[in-house]
């Protein structure tokens, strides 16, 4: 594994490159698009282990932090969706250079899955396939989920939590949106998040896309059906797993759930 800095001078990014361990040239490479905020922290170890396993299976992998996240330059509040799509484009070009292959799969989870789909539409990048896990298709609902998780986290963490937290959550739709789960969110990102709807998240016609999602996630099910109706190349793979994105690992909510690791490894390895 090699840490690196890449991207244009004014917007450099930190990444970790896992070269394929096979003696032969890598048959393909995987670009991993991280979730947002706490969910990225929650899944960091999962991404690391998945990348290691893919490299062992003969694929080169690039993990990276978007601007304003992880170790990359920029404050939390500097992050926004347009810039993050460009970051995916830059990471794709960097992976092409490092792995010396044009066969590049994209993997994204949660908001990272949404960003990957947006980038496939807008950036000059040509992923061979896109694999998505627990995609966010409704930004308003996602922001509500983050707000509720923020209150839950405060209630769990404080010895005696503020008893007005739930009242604030209900009365003020913007409460806790300035820093959900401790990651400062700009007004711009909040606006962009709320603008994500099933109508403007679209599969790219040139990229075969597989979506892993809970079979009870009605929003994603409906979205996939709508994409299929437009004859766009997308497949829904029903998948239940114990990872709770907005919490910290617990005994029944493992840091690297084996079933998720094996399923996604099999899908990406081909």
């Amino acid at each position: 594994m090699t840490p690196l800095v890449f991207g244009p001078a004014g917007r450099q990014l930190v990444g970790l490159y896992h070269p394929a361990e096979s003696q032969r040239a890598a048959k393909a490479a995987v670009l991993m698009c991280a979730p947002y905020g706490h969910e990225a922290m929650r899944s960091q170890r999962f991404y690391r282990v998945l990348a290691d396993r893919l490299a062992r299976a003969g694929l080169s992998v690039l993990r990276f932090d978007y601007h304003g996240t992880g170790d990359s330059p920029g404050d939390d509040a500097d992050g926004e969706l347009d810039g993050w799509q460009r970051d995916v484009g830059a990471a794709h070009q960097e992976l092409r250079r490092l792995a010396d292959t044009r066969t590049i799969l994209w993997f994204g989870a949660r908001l990272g899955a949404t960003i990957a789909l947006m980038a496939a539409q807008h950036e000059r990048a040509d992923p061979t396939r896109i694999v998505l896990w627990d995609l966010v298709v409704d930004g308003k609902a996602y922001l509500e989920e983050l707000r509720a998780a923020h209150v839950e986290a405060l209630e769990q963490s404080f010895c005696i939590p503020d008893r007005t937290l739930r009242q604030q959550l209900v009365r003020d739709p913007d409460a806790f949106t300035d820093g959900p789960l401790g990651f400062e969110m700009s007004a711009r990102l909040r606006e962009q998040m709320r603008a994500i709807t099933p109508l403007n998240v679209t599969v790219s016609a040139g990229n075969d896309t597989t979506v892993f999602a809970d079979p009870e996630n009605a929003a994603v099910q409906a979205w996939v059906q709508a994409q299929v109706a437009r004859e766009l190349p997308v497949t829904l793979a029903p998948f239940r797993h114990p990872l709770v994105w907005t919490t910290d690992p617990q005994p029944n909510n493992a840091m690297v759930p084996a079933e998720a690791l094996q399923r996604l490894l099999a899908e990406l390895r081909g």
Partner: protein
Amino acid sequence: MKEFPILFGPEDAPLMGMVTTPASGDTAPVACLMLNMGAGYRIGPRRINVKLARRLAQHGISSLRMDLSGLGDSSAPKGQERFTQQAVLDLQAAMKLLETTLGIQRFIVIGLCSGGGRGLSLAEVDPRVVGLFMFDSYAFPGPRARIERDLRRMLALAGNASVYGKVGRWLRRKLGPRQPSAQLFDDEPIEETQRYFATTVRQLVERGVAVFVMYTGTLHVRDLGRDQLGSVADEPFAKQLEYRFIGEIDHTLTSIAGQQTFLDEVGDWVRRVASGRPAAKPALGAPPVQRVQVVAAQKGALPDMAAG
């Protein structure tokens, strides 16, 4: 500010870290080491280590945030050392990296929760540690503080629904089947831990190491007099500890306001230690402390990443 990622330590089991240095000019002769909180990776909860590193760099102080062996992006260790001993070796590898690349020989360890314990273990054996920050790391509240906390929770049940879950979990822990302890850490009686803490911190204070302990609203609602130190608070050396209880902050710094308070408190303390609080007596033969010029003399050693 300059930042770059780096692998360091043993070639067959490299450790992952991010170095943050001031952009140019004089830099403090002391650097901060930031390590994992629990099993979380080097950026810290809510990216706090990144935020602290960058704030310190604005004040001329370099830092390295790193993953201990087996955590985050660091390799699993090849040796057979116990977790604590391996952590000490990892942190010493970090110190060696900063000595080699930046010429710094004095270090402040920023330890959150379990990280505080690792920092204490390092400071115990390595005279290069001149400052140690422990956040919600060792807590020995006495009977009065514990009874008050539990009583307050009971009273809060009447008007605070969020306390129900806490009390329920507490009752399940007390009355349910005993859960196996985590294998990662030694499972020793609290009295032994308290004895180790008191003995070791006393030695550090006698050596002139600056020690700052901070406790949060996760542990209690208020503090009447260094409650979290329990009987240790009465020891003479404890008067020299910097102690803060901040009820508005929680253990994982969930709120932005809480993070700002944390950054102000810790940043201010680090600057005071770096600028001349009594430092550890230098090891025999160690050169005198000098301010170092960063980057210019070592340009070849430092990858150049655009300032954030």
